[in-house]
């Protein structure tokens, strides 16, 4: 992966959630999506902290949506995965798959 950093577990979960949610990817659905798959609570601010980090690395971009009354007139911040982000996800999957394939016994025991 050249000199780029590998994605952390939480960063990978967020990127996958953003890809899955498509044009509905903002703080609340992203944290709900991660909670659903991890079976434990995720704070919205930790999601934002990770998204800010990913945006700093150029892996996601964000844009502001419309303000709604139920949000006290505050706009939603929608996130999209960039080409660089997609490349990072594929690269991480390739590295993980390659490692998992070398551990067939562990894969059976973990079920």
């Amino acid at each position, binding site marked *: 992966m050249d000199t780029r950093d590998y994605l952390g577990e939480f960063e990978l979960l967020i990127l996958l959630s953003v890809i899955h949610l498509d044009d509905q990817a903002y703080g609340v659905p992203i944290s709900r999506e991660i909670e659903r798959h991890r079976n434990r609570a995720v704070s*919205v*601010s930790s999601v934002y902290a990770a998204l800010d980090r990913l945006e700093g690395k150029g892996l996601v971009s964000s844009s*502001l949506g419309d*303000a709604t009354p139920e*949000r006290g007139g*505050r706009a939603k911040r929608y996130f999209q995965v960039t080409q660089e982000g997609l490349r990072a996800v594929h690269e991480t999957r390739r590295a993980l798959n390659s490692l998992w394939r070398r551990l067939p016994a562990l894969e059976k025991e973990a079920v």
Partner: protein
Amino acid sequence: MNKRQPPTIATWILHHLTPGQPNESLHGDLLEELQNGRSSAWYWRQVMTALAFATAREMRAHWPALTFAALWAVMARTWWHFVFWSAAHRVGLILPWPYSIFLGTAAIILESLWAGLGVYVWLYALLHGDSRIDGFARAFWLAPSLYFTLTIAIKIIAHPLGIRLSNLDALHPVIYCLSFATAAWGVRVIEPNLAAGKQN
């Protein structure tokens, strides 16, 4: 539909005590979740987590100010104990109470806080190769204000708890670092477009 109101104090903390730029989208998300049935306890937890994350982020972003504050606190304290007091004793500068408080206060402001901030701002401008510094004046009144507010607050809290004031001496470098670093965090090089805006 009845709108659920978020806990007032938690909202105030989110707005006023969370360091850095206010995250309006996060605030909107928390309100949205509250309307969707989340509890006040959940809202409080989210606010406290946001506060912790923002503080950690600001500390990482401003590590030079924090490091300088810690180093200067050690140097100022050493100078205060081993140079200032011995010199003051030699020339008979030790005043009786309550006048000694004025001398001590002036010494803390001039020698510890303002001299430290002066050196910090000078180094900051030198490293950035730019003398257009913003936040300089604010830092000079903010540092002593924070220092004395925190010192008095701790003494007010400690007194009913029966904690001896001499036992609080160890907290002074921590209070100093917090005050200095908070004031120094606001010191920035003025961006060219902002500088042009200020001139207009």
